[in-house]
């Protein structure tokens, strides 16, 4: 095992313990984000040169699987993978990234995967004036700033702007998502920014493309964690629940369906593991997009089967199955259904 493998292995164990503690109600009771900072998870994906731990996609994958398994509410994906990931790729964002890594600044992601920028930026003296509405910004109610992608005036391309949520002209309307997490619309009405708050190097399109790929892999890892629980719970229930004097898992028709769940889970696990291990290699993007798409195919099917095989109890709000199904579904609605990523997948195979 390489040094990196060792570190990932240890990280995965820490994640397991953290998730188990949360499930057992033994959380510290303090601020969850501070806990993640104390565990070092806020700096874990970023390059060592930037002050991070350099664990990259493999580290993110371990943390995100934990988020899926434990249905953790912490906004690791939008704050660290999306906004932080973009900051880490902007040469002029070192200070902002340092503040994010220290847990001092909480920056939400004001850009959507696979959608053109919704905000416009007009030159205004030496600075910029931003306008427009960014929908569905995850966990914006926990953030103090939002990193928005905007189309800058006549220039073309995409700019990245760091917008404090307390600036004049910024309005945030928050609402619950179907899985209980929260998001919000960020409405920018002529928000004035100094030139220094534009962080990209002229065009952020390429770096945002990379961030989107990393986001899809992280979300696939979260889905993997969630469907792992769905599978395990259903398997355990099939062994426990008796009807007609036998465990329902002894009926062959249900055995076959559980086997299919297991295979579908393994397909995602295999793609996520390979994508996470691929680093920046040539296959990394292709595997990441494939992992995301497969996580939705498998996730839908495993989720629906989990409810079905539990019978009526799977239909209750109290039972965990529904919460996991909703998490995977909301991830799909946030980051895009399989078909929306086919073209992206094909583009990763060119050249």
């Amino acid at each position, binding site marked *: 095992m390489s040094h990196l493998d060792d570190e990932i292995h240890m990280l995965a164990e820490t994640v397991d313990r953290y998730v188990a503690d949360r499930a057992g109600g033994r959380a510290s009771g303090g601020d969850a984000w501070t806990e993640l900072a104390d565990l070092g998870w806020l700096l874990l994906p970023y390059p060592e040169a930037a002050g991070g731990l350099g664990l990259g996609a493999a580290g993110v994958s371990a943390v995100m699987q934990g988020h899926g398994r434990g249905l953790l509410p912490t906004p690791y994906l939008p704050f660290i993978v999306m906004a932080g990931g973009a900051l880490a790729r902007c040469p002029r964002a070192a200070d902002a990234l340092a503040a994010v890594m220290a847990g001092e600044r909480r920056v939400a992601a004001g850009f959507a995967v696979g959608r053109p920028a919704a905000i416009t930026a007009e030159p205004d003296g030496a600075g910029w004036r931003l306008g427009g509405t960014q929908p569905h910004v995850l966990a914006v109610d926990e953030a103090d700033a939002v990193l928005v992608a905007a189309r800058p005036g006549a220039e073309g391309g995409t700019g990245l702007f760091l917008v404090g949520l307390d600036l004049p002209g910024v309005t945030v309307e928050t609402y619950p*998502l179907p899985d209980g997490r929260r998001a919000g619309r960020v409405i920018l009405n002529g928000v004035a920014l100094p030139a220094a708050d534009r962080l990209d190097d002229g065009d952020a399109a390429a770096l945002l493309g990379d961030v989107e790929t990393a986001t899809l892999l992280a979300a696939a890892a979260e889905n993997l964690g969630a469907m792992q629980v769905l599978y395990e719970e259903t398997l355990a229930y099939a062994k426990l629940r008796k*009807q007609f*004097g036998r465990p329902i898992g002894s009926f062959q028709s249900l055995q076959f369906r559980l086997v299919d769940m297991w295979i579908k889970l393994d397909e995602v696990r295999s793609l996520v593991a390979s994508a996470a291990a691929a680093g920046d290699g040539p296959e990394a993007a292709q595997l990441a997009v494939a992992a995301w798409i497969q996580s939705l195919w498998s996730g839908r099917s495993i989720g629906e089967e989990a409810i079905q095989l539990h019978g009526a109890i799977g239909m209750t709000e109290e039972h965990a199955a529904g919460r996991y199904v909703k998490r995977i579904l909301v991830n799909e*609605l946030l980051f895009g259904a399989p078909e929306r990523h086919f073209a992206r997948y094909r583009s990763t195979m060119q050249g």
Partner: protein
Amino acid sequence: MTMIFSDADKAFAADVRDYLAANLPEELARKVRYNQRLTRDDYTGWQDVLAARNWYAVGWPAEAGGPGLTQTQRYLFERAYGALPCPHPCQFGIAMAGPVIFTFGNEEQKERFLPGIRENRDFWCQGYSEPGAGSDLAALKTTAVREGDHYRVNGQKIWTTWANWADWMFCLVKTDLQVKPQRGISFLLIDMRSPGITVRPIRTIDGDHEFNEVFLNDVMVPVENRIGEEGQGWTYAKFLLEFERFSMSGAARSRRVLSEIRADAEALGRTGDARLAERLTGLEIELLALEHMELRLLARSVGGENPGPEASKLKIRGTEIAQALSRLRVDLHAEDCLVHSDAFLDALEPSSNPAAGGAVATYLNQRKLTIWGGSNEVQRMILAKQILELG
């Protein structure tokens, strides 16, 4: 296979359509269209509209005070009904308690209970399932011990839809613990206001309150509330299963939902989306196959044949298609489904895209279709054994 409908049948269908369309309140139609939650008053108010034409107990024979429709008219009624956004009427009285009472009850029971069901005065619930008895219903444990002219009932029912609204519950109980499970079961009608009954809500996955736990603690039920003979409850329950399966395809309703999704796609300017068009066309063809399976079965039963357990195929395909449609609606509205609002679902607040507002809740809620009314696995077991004769 197509059915040729007589002029009289066509006139009947037109009458149904016109009456429903003229009397369906706009606000109720909107709630159904947008999958918002209905209140007890929504249901009973609408059922009064049906009862005014004696179409609430629409499947009942004339001897039981029903409209005495032919099989063909029943089919045409369902088709006209499903085409409009009418609430799905509460079935437990009209489709379950009623038929058992008019088939197996005595004269006194018929007089006492049937008018209240038919005229939508009593709200009924079904007390079959228990924590340990779901697909294996015969494993139920609730006991009814005879004490003079009463039964003393103890036990627990679960998943009891609308027990919280009900005046009456028809219930399967054990009256004999010594014999083979199926033979010791009796069919009791229990007044929900009896002392010793506790109803506890269970929320469904979409946050709604449909079903409940019902605890029965020394509930005294008069012997005259037993339908038929002691120990014959299982036979009556099985009779009902066959009665019920035929009406479970939901094809007409699915056709309406499909056209609603099409209209939404047009409103969203998505008519040029080839993938969406393919899915809509594919589902329409699946639905057409279901409709024609149903028509063929209908033609056979009009010809005097009892289709019996074969109707299970309609439940299987009908529920699968309804679920696929609920998924398609989520896929169509995609990120517009992200805003969750209980106030919208309870029709207390508008939404900028109401078609999307209820889409996720409906997708989740419709998972029940393949679980209840005899799960689709149980339906397949029935077909395997009784139609394919696989032992």
